[in-house]
Protein backbone atom coordinates (compact mmCIF):
# COMPACT_ATOMS: atom_id res chain seq x y z
CA UNK A 1 0.00 0.00 0.00
CA UNK A 2 2.90 2.32 0.83
CA UNK A 3 4.44 1.41 -2.52
CA UNK A 4 1.22 2.44 -4.21
CA UNK A 5 1.22 5.74 -2.34
CA UNK A 6 4.81 6.44 -3.39
CA UNK A 7 4.00 5.63 -6.99
CA UNK A 8 1.09 8.11 -7.06
CA UNK A 9 3.13 10.86 -5.41
CA UNK A 10 6.03 10.24 -7.80
CA UNK A 11 3.70 10.26 -10.80
CA UNK A 12 2.05 13.55 -9.83
CA UNK A 13 5.37 15.22 -9.04
CA UNK A 14 6.81 14.12 -12.37
CA UNK A 15 3.71 15.43 -14.11
CA UNK A 16 4.10 18.78 -12.34
CA UNK A 17 7.72 18.96 -13.41
CA UNK A 18 6.62 18.56 -17.03
CA UNK A 19 4.19 21.46 -16.54
CA UNK A 20 6.54 23.74 -14.66
CA UNK A 21 4.63 26.81 -15.80
CA UNK A 22 1.58 25.82 -13.76
CA UNK A 23 3.62 25.43 -10.60
CA UNK A 24 5.53 28.66 -11.11
CA UNK A 25 2.31 30.57 -11.81
CA UNK A 26 1.01 30.55 -8.27
CA UNK A 27 4.46 31.09 -6.75
CA UNK A 28 4.89 34.20 -8.90
CA UNK A 29 1.38 35.27 -7.88
CA UNK A 30 2.38 34.90 -4.22
CA UNK A 31 5.55 36.93 -4.65
CA UNK A 32 3.82 39.70 -6.60
CA UNK A 33 0.88 40.10 -4.20
CA UNK A 34 3.15 40.21 -1.16
CA UNK A 35 5.53 42.65 -2.84
CA UNK A 36 2.75 45.02 -3.91
CA UNK A 37 1.68 45.74 -0.34
CA UNK A 38 4.80 47.63 0.85
CA UNK A 39 4.65 49.61 -2.41
CA UNK A 40 0.98 50.46 -1.97
CA UNK A 41 0.90 51.06 1.76
CA UNK A 42 4.13 53.03 1.91
CA UNK A 43 7.39 52.46 3.75
CA UNK A 44 6.10 52.83 7.30
CA UNK A 45 8.05 50.12 9.24
CA UNK A 46 5.67 49.77 12.18
CA UNK A 47 2.59 49.55 9.98
CA UNK A 48 4.24 46.98 7.70
CA UNK A 49 5.43 44.89 10.62
CA UNK A 50 1.90 44.82 12.01
CA UNK A 51 0.33 43.90 8.69
CA UNK A 52 2.93 41.35 7.58
CA UNK A 53 1.44 38.16 9.12
CA UNK A 54 -1.98 38.81 7.62
CA UNK A 55 -0.66 39.75 4.18
CA UNK A 56 1.69 36.79 3.94
CA UNK A 57 -0.97 34.35 5.08
CA UNK A 58 -3.75 35.70 2.84
CA UNK A 59 -1.44 35.67 -0.18
CA UNK A 60 -0.28 32.12 0.58
CA UNK A 61 -3.86 30.98 1.02
CA UNK A 62 -4.99 32.48 -2.30
CA UNK A 63 -1.95 31.06 -4.09
CA UNK A 64 -2.67 27.61 -2.70
CA UNK A 65 -6.28 27.94 -3.81
CA UNK A 66 -5.28 28.91 -7.35
CA UNK A 67 -3.62 25.55 -7.84
CA UNK A 68 -6.52 23.51 -6.46
CA UNK A 69 -8.55 23.25 -9.63
CA UNK A 70 -5.86 21.22 -11.32
CA UNK A 71 -5.83 18.61 -8.57
CA UNK A 72 -8.37 16.33 -10.26
CA UNK A 73 -9.49 18.23 -13.37
CA UNK A 74 -6.80 16.98 -15.77
CA UNK A 75 -7.18 13.37 -14.65
CA UNK A 76 -10.95 13.73 -14.96
CA UNK A 77 -10.73 15.09 -18.49
CA UNK A 78 -8.45 12.41 -19.94
CA UNK A 79 -10.02 9.42 -18.20
CA UNK A 80 -7.19 8.66 -15.77
CA UNK A 81 -9.48 9.31 -12.82
CA UNK A 82 -11.83 6.63 -14.15
CA UNK A 83 -8.96 4.15 -14.02
CA UNK A 84 -8.11 5.32 -10.51
CA UNK A 85 -11.66 4.62 -9.35
CA UNK A 86 -11.40 1.00 -10.48
CA UNK A 87 -7.74 0.66 -9.58
CA UNK A 88 -6.31 -2.23 -7.59
CA UNK A 89 -5.17 0.42 -5.10
CA UNK A 90 -7.81 1.63 -2.65
CA UNK A 91 -9.11 5.03 -3.82
CA UNK A 92 -8.19 6.52 -0.44
CA UNK A 93 -4.49 5.79 -1.03
CA UNK A 94 -4.62 7.44 -4.45
CA UNK A 95 -6.41 10.50 -3.08
CA UNK A 96 -3.93 10.91 -0.21
CA UNK A 97 -1.05 10.51 -2.68
CA UNK A 98 -2.46 13.23 -4.91
CA UNK A 99 -2.95 15.55 -1.92
CA UNK A 100 0.62 15.00 -0.73
CA UNK A 101 1.94 15.75 -4.23
CA UNK A 102 -0.26 18.85 -4.39
CA UNK A 103 1.11 20.11 -1.10
CA UNK A 104 4.70 19.47 -2.19
CA UNK A 105 4.09 21.58 -5.30
CA UNK A 106 2.09 24.39 -3.64
CA UNK A 107 2.26 24.53 0.16
CA UNK A 108 5.88 23.51 0.53
CA UNK A 109 7.42 26.07 -1.86
CA UNK A 110 5.17 28.76 -0.38
CA UNK A 111 6.40 27.86 3.10
CA UNK A 112 10.02 28.06 1.99
CA UNK A 113 9.50 31.31 0.11
CA UNK A 114 7.57 33.10 2.87
CA UNK A 115 10.52 33.99 5.20
CA UNK A 116 12.38 35.56 2.29
CA UNK A 117 9.40 37.79 1.60
CA UNK A 118 8.91 38.39 5.32
CA UNK A 119 12.21 40.26 5.37
CA UNK A 120 10.58 42.93 3.20
CA UNK A 121 8.28 43.67 6.14
CA UNK A 122 11.12 43.85 8.65
CA UNK A 123 9.73 40.90 10.63
CA UNK A 124 11.98 39.89 13.56
CA UNK A 125 13.68 36.53 13.34
CA UNK A 126 11.43 34.84 15.89
CA UNK A 127 8.40 35.88 13.86
CA UNK A 128 9.93 34.53 10.66
CA UNK A 129 10.51 31.16 12.32
CA UNK A 130 6.91 31.09 13.52
CA UNK A 131 5.73 32.08 10.05
CA UNK A 132 7.49 29.06 8.56
CA UNK A 133 6.11 26.80 11.29
CA UNK A 134 2.55 28.05 10.94
CA UNK A 135 2.66 27.67 7.14
CA UNK A 136 4.22 24.21 7.44
CA UNK A 137 1.31 23.08 9.62
CA UNK A 138 -1.38 25.18 7.92
CA UNK A 139 -0.77 24.64 4.20
CA UNK A 140 -1.35 20.84 4.34
CA UNK A 141 -4.78 21.67 5.78
CA UNK A 142 -5.38 23.90 2.76
CA UNK A 143 -4.50 21.04 0.39
CA UNK A 144 -6.66 18.55 2.29
CA UNK A 145 -9.77 20.74 2.54
CA UNK A 146 -9.18 22.03 -0.98
CA UNK A 147 -9.15 18.44 -2.26
CA UNK A 148 -12.72 17.95 -1.03
CA UNK A 149 -13.79 21.13 -2.81
CA UNK A 150 -11.96 20.18 -6.00
CA UNK A 151 -13.64 16.77 -6.02
CA UNK A 152 -17.09 18.24 -5.36
CA UNK A 153 -16.84 20.77 -8.19
CA UNK A 154 -15.47 18.25 -10.70
CA UNK A 155 -17.03 18.64 -14.13
CA UNK A 156 -19.20 21.55 -12.99
CA UNK A 157 -19.31 24.55 -15.31
CA UNK A 158 -17.85 27.63 -13.61
CA UNK A 159 -16.34 25.26 -11.08
CA UNK A 160 -13.55 27.69 -10.23
CA UNK A 161 -15.82 30.27 -8.62
CA UNK A 162 -17.88 27.59 -6.91
CA UNK A 163 -14.70 26.01 -5.58
CA UNK A 164 -13.65 29.33 -4.02
CA UNK A 165 -17.08 29.83 -2.45
CA UNK A 166 -17.03 26.32 -1.07
CA UNK A 167 -13.50 26.27 0.26
CA UNK A 168 -12.82 29.81 1.49
CA UNK A 169 -15.16 29.68 4.51
CA UNK A 170 -13.38 26.51 5.62
CA UNK A 171 -10.01 28.22 5.18
CA UNK A 172 -10.95 31.05 7.54
CA UNK A 173 -10.01 29.32 10.82
CA UNK A 174 -6.66 28.28 9.35
CA UNK A 175 -6.02 31.88 8.31
CA UNK A 176 -7.00 33.30 11.70
CA UNK A 177 -4.79 30.99 13.72
CA UNK A 178 -1.95 30.91 11.19
CA UNK A 179 -1.63 34.68 10.95
CA UNK A 180 -2.45 34.93 14.68
CA UNK A 181 0.54 32.78 15.62
CA UNK A 182 2.93 35.12 13.80
CA UNK A 183 1.27 38.23 15.24
CA UNK A 184 1.54 36.84 18.80
CA UNK A 185 5.28 36.31 18.43
CA UNK A 186 5.72 39.79 16.94
CA UNK A 187 4.07 41.25 20.05
CA UNK A 188 6.29 39.18 22.31
CA UNK A 189 3.94 36.36 23.34
CA UNK A 190 4.01 32.62 22.76
CA UNK A 191 2.65 31.19 19.51
CA UNK A 192 2.13 27.74 21.07
CA UNK A 193 -1.67 27.93 21.54
CA UNK A 194 -2.24 29.03 17.95
CA UNK A 195 0.12 26.44 16.55
CA UNK A 196 -1.52 23.71 18.65
CA UNK A 197 -4.90 24.67 17.24
CA UNK A 198 -3.48 24.57 13.71
CA UNK A 199 -2.15 21.11 14.52
CA UNK A 200 -5.61 20.08 15.67
CA UNK A 201 -7.09 21.31 12.34
CA UNK A 202 -4.46 19.28 10.53
CA UNK A 203 -5.31 16.14 12.52
CA UNK A 204 -9.04 16.54 11.89
CA UNK A 205 -8.66 17.21 8.19
CA UNK A 206 -6.25 14.27 7.81
CA UNK A 207 -8.94 12.04 9.24
CA UNK A 208 -11.95 13.46 7.38
CA UNK A 209 -10.80 15.05 4.10
CA UNK A 210 -9.50 11.97 2.19
CA UNK A 211 -12.63 10.04 3.03
CA UNK A 212 -14.92 12.91 1.97
CA UNK A 213 -12.91 13.37 -1.24
CA UNK A 214 -13.31 9.69 -2.15
CA UNK A 215 -17.06 9.94 -1.63
CA UNK A 216 -17.24 13.10 -3.76
CA UNK A 217 -15.24 11.50 -6.58
CA UNK A 218 -17.54 8.46 -6.64
CA UNK A 219 -20.56 10.77 -6.81
CA UNK A 220 -18.96 12.66 -9.72
CA UNK A 221 -18.94 9.43 -11.73
CA UNK A 222 -22.24 7.92 -10.61
Amino acid sequence: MLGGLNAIVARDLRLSMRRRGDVLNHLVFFVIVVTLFPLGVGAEPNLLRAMAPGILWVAALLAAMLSLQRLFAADFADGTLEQMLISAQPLGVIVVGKMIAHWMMSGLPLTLLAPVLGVQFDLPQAALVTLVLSLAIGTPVLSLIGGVGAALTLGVRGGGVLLALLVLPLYVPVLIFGAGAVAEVSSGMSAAPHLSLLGAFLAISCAVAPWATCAALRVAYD
Partner: protein
Amino acid sequence: MLEARDLACERGDLRLFSGLEFTLGAGELLWVRGPNGSGKTSLLRLVAGLSRPATGTIRWRGEDIRSLAEDYARELLFIGHANAVKEEFSAEENLAVSLELAGRRSSAAERAGALERLGLAARARLPSRYLSQGQKRRVALARLCLAADVPLWILDEPFAALDARALDTVVGLVDAHLARGGAAILTTHQEVTIAARARFSIALGD
Protein backbone atom coordinates in the same frame (compact mmCIF):
# COMPACT_ATOMS: atom_id res chain seq x y z
CA MET B 1 -18.10 -15.89 -13.68
CA LEU B 2 -20.08 -12.71 -14.21
CA GLU B 3 -23.79 -12.60 -13.61
CA ALA B 4 -26.16 -9.64 -14.04
CA ARG B 5 -29.73 -9.77 -12.79
CA ASP B 6 -32.57 -7.38 -13.60
CA LEU B 7 -30.27 -4.46 -14.45
CA ALA B 8 -31.77 -1.06 -15.13
CA CYS B 9 -29.97 2.16 -15.93
CA GLU B 10 -31.25 5.71 -15.83
CA ARG B 11 -29.59 8.85 -17.09
CA GLY B 12 -31.45 11.82 -15.65
CA ASP B 13 -35.14 11.11 -16.34
CA LEU B 14 -34.37 8.82 -19.25
CA ARG B 15 -34.55 5.08 -18.69
CA LEU B 16 -31.93 3.58 -21.01
CA PHE B 17 -32.71 -0.06 -20.36
CA SER B 18 -34.35 -2.24 -17.74
CA GLY B 19 -34.72 -5.91 -16.90
CA LEU B 20 -31.37 -6.74 -18.49
CA GLU B 21 -29.97 -10.15 -17.57
CA PHE B 22 -26.91 -12.06 -18.69
CA THR B 23 -24.30 -14.48 -17.47
CA LEU B 24 -20.80 -14.66 -18.81
CA GLY B 25 -18.57 -17.68 -18.30
CA ALA B 26 -14.93 -18.52 -18.95
CA GLY B 27 -13.93 -18.13 -22.58
CA GLU B 28 -17.11 -16.28 -23.46
CA LEU B 29 -17.54 -13.00 -25.28
CA LEU B 30 -20.41 -10.59 -24.80
CA TRP B 31 -20.92 -8.16 -27.62
CA VAL B 32 -23.07 -5.18 -26.71
CA ARG B 33 -24.75 -3.67 -29.76
CA GLY B 34 -27.06 -0.77 -30.32
CA PRO B 35 -27.31 2.64 -31.92
CA ASN B 36 -25.61 5.72 -30.44
CA GLY B 37 -27.12 6.73 -27.14
CA SER B 38 -28.74 3.36 -26.47
CA GLY B 39 -26.75 2.82 -23.28
CA LYS B 40 -23.81 0.67 -24.35
CA THR B 41 -21.21 2.73 -22.54
CA SER B 42 -23.52 3.07 -19.51
CA LEU B 43 -23.87 -0.72 -19.34
CA LEU B 44 -20.10 -1.19 -19.53
CA ARG B 45 -19.57 1.38 -16.77
CA LEU B 46 -22.12 -0.42 -14.59
CA VAL B 47 -20.33 -3.71 -15.08
CA ALA B 48 -16.95 -2.08 -14.38
CA GLY B 49 -18.35 -0.77 -11.10
CA LEU B 50 -17.93 2.89 -12.04
CA SER B 51 -21.59 3.68 -11.58
CA ARG B 52 -24.47 2.15 -9.72
CA PRO B 53 -27.44 0.52 -11.47
CA ALA B 54 -30.91 1.98 -10.79
CA THR B 55 -32.03 -1.55 -9.93
CA GLY B 56 -30.50 -4.98 -10.11
CA THR B 57 -27.24 -6.58 -9.08
CA ILE B 58 -24.02 -7.64 -10.73
CA ARG B 59 -22.21 -10.60 -9.24
CA TRP B 60 -18.65 -11.75 -9.83
CA ARG B 61 -18.03 -15.38 -8.87
CA GLY B 62 -21.21 -15.22 -6.80
CA GLU B 63 -20.47 -12.05 -4.87
CA ASP B 64 -21.83 -8.56 -5.39
CA ILE B 65 -19.17 -6.39 -7.09
CA ARG B 66 -20.02 -3.53 -4.70
CA SER B 67 -18.86 -5.54 -1.70
CA LEU B 68 -15.80 -6.91 -3.53
CA ALA B 69 -14.50 -3.40 -4.35
CA GLU B 70 -10.72 -3.64 -5.01
CA ASP B 71 -10.81 -7.44 -5.11
CA TYR B 72 -13.05 -7.08 -8.17
CA ALA B 73 -10.95 -4.25 -9.62
CA ARG B 74 -7.89 -6.54 -9.56
CA GLU B 75 -9.72 -9.07 -11.75
CA LEU B 76 -10.87 -6.47 -14.20
CA LEU B 77 -9.40 -4.50 -17.06
CA PHE B 78 -11.51 -1.60 -18.30
CA ILE B 79 -10.64 0.55 -21.26
CA GLY B 80 -13.21 3.26 -21.75
CA HIS B 81 -13.81 5.93 -24.36
CA ALA B 82 -11.17 8.13 -22.76
CA ASN B 83 -7.67 6.78 -23.26
CA ALA B 84 -6.27 7.86 -19.90
CA VAL B 85 -3.14 8.90 -21.78
CA LYS B 86 -1.27 11.89 -20.34
CA GLU B 87 0.03 14.23 -23.02
CA GLU B 88 3.09 15.10 -20.92
CA PHE B 89 4.16 11.47 -20.54
CA SER B 90 5.69 9.26 -23.20
CA ALA B 91 3.94 6.09 -24.33
CA GLU B 92 6.32 4.12 -22.13
CA GLU B 93 5.52 6.19 -19.02
CA ASN B 94 1.78 6.10 -19.70
CA LEU B 95 1.86 2.34 -19.93
CA ALA B 96 3.92 2.08 -16.74
CA VAL B 97 1.46 4.30 -14.84
CA SER B 98 -1.62 2.45 -16.02
CA LEU B 99 -0.07 -0.91 -15.09
CA GLU B 100 0.89 0.50 -11.71
CA LEU B 101 -2.71 1.59 -11.12
CA ALA B 102 -3.86 -1.87 -12.10
CA GLY B 103 -1.54 -3.22 -9.43
CA ARG B 104 0.67 -5.10 -11.86
CA ARG B 105 4.44 -4.97 -11.66
CA SER B 106 6.10 -4.80 -15.05
CA SER B 107 9.66 -4.71 -16.31
CA ALA B 108 10.93 -2.24 -18.89
CA ALA B 109 11.42 -5.11 -21.33
CA GLU B 110 7.79 -6.23 -20.96
CA ARG B 111 6.56 -2.71 -21.59
CA ALA B 112 8.81 -2.29 -24.62
CA GLY B 113 7.52 -5.61 -25.97
CA ALA B 114 3.90 -4.54 -25.51
CA LEU B 115 4.46 -1.21 -27.26
CA GLU B 116 6.29 -2.93 -30.09
CA ARG B 117 3.41 -5.31 -30.58
CA LEU B 118 1.08 -2.34 -31.04
CA GLY B 119 3.53 -0.76 -33.50
CA LEU B 120 4.71 2.02 -31.19
CA ALA B 121 8.34 0.97 -30.72
CA ALA B 122 9.72 3.95 -32.63
CA ARG B 123 7.65 6.44 -30.63
CA ALA B 124 7.83 4.90 -27.17
CA ARG B 125 9.86 7.78 -25.72
CA LEU B 126 8.07 10.65 -27.45
CA PRO B 127 5.69 12.81 -25.35
CA SER B 128 2.19 11.58 -26.15
CA ARG B 129 1.05 15.00 -27.31
CA TYR B 130 2.90 14.30 -30.56
CA LEU B 131 0.95 11.08 -31.14
CA SER B 132 -2.10 10.84 -33.37
CA GLN B 133 -5.54 9.85 -32.08
CA GLY B 134 -5.08 6.26 -33.24
CA GLN B 135 -1.62 6.03 -31.69
CA LYS B 136 -2.95 7.26 -28.35
CA ARG B 137 -5.62 4.59 -28.56
CA ARG B 138 -2.87 2.04 -29.13
CA VAL B 139 -0.98 3.27 -26.06
CA ALA B 140 -4.12 2.60 -24.01
CA LEU B 141 -4.58 -0.82 -25.62
CA ALA B 142 -0.95 -1.85 -25.05
CA ARG B 143 -2.09 -2.85 -21.55
CA LEU B 144 -3.89 -5.82 -23.12
CA CYS B 145 -0.53 -7.42 -23.95
CA LEU B 146 0.36 -7.54 -20.26
CA ALA B 147 -3.04 -8.51 -18.88
CA ALA B 148 -2.97 -12.25 -19.46
CA ASP B 149 -3.77 -12.95 -15.81
CA VAL B 150 -6.75 -10.57 -15.66
CA PRO B 151 -9.88 -12.68 -16.19
CA LEU B 152 -12.39 -10.02 -17.27
CA TRP B 153 -11.77 -7.49 -20.03
CA ILE B 154 -14.27 -4.70 -20.62
CA LEU B 155 -13.52 -2.75 -23.77
CA ASP B 156 -15.55 0.24 -24.92
CA GLU B 157 -15.10 0.77 -28.65
CA PRO B 158 -11.57 -0.67 -28.62
CA PHE B 159 -11.26 -0.54 -32.40
CA ALA B 160 -12.20 3.11 -32.86
CA ALA B 161 -9.48 5.12 -34.64
CA LEU B 162 -7.33 2.02 -35.27
CA ASP B 163 -5.88 1.14 -38.65
CA ALA B 164 -6.28 -2.33 -40.18
CA ARG B 165 -3.04 -3.72 -38.79
CA ALA B 166 -3.59 -2.51 -35.25
CA LEU B 167 -7.14 -3.81 -35.43
CA ASP B 168 -5.85 -7.29 -36.33
CA THR B 169 -3.39 -7.14 -33.43
CA VAL B 170 -6.11 -6.19 -30.92
CA VAL B 171 -8.52 -8.82 -32.26
CA GLY B 172 -5.68 -11.32 -31.89
CA LEU B 173 -5.15 -10.26 -28.28
CA VAL B 174 -8.86 -10.67 -27.47
CA ASP B 175 -8.87 -14.06 -29.22
CA ALA B 176 -5.91 -15.25 -27.17
CA HIS B 177 -7.53 -13.97 -23.98
CA LEU B 178 -10.74 -15.91 -24.69
CA ALA B 179 -8.77 -19.03 -25.63
CA ARG B 180 -6.98 -18.82 -22.25
CA GLY B 181 -10.37 -18.96 -20.56
CA GLY B 182 -10.86 -15.27 -19.94
CA ALA B 183 -14.10 -13.42 -20.50
CA ALA B 184 -14.64 -10.21 -22.44
CA ILE B 185 -17.34 -7.63 -22.93
CA LEU B 186 -17.02 -5.20 -25.78
CA THR B 187 -18.87 -2.70 -27.88
CA THR B 188 -18.00 -1.91 -31.44
CA HIS B 189 -19.65 -0.66 -34.59
CA GLN B 190 -17.11 -2.43 -36.75
CA GLU B 191 -17.59 -5.95 -38.06
CA VAL B 192 -14.84 -8.07 -36.59
CA THR B 193 -14.47 -11.80 -36.29
CA ILE B 194 -13.48 -13.05 -32.88
CA ALA B 195 -13.24 -16.76 -32.24
CA ALA B 196 -14.82 -17.41 -28.87
CA ARG B 197 -16.05 -20.57 -27.19
CA ALA B 198 -19.41 -18.86 -26.94
CA ARG B 199 -20.30 -15.46 -28.18
CA PHE B 200 -23.58 -13.78 -27.73
CA SER B 201 -24.79 -10.26 -28.07
CA ILE B 202 -27.17 -7.90 -26.39
CA ALA B 203 -28.96 -5.41 -28.57
CA LEU B 204 -29.91 -2.27 -26.72
CA GLY B 205 -32.36 0.40 -27.79
CA ASP B 206 -34.83 -1.85 -29.65
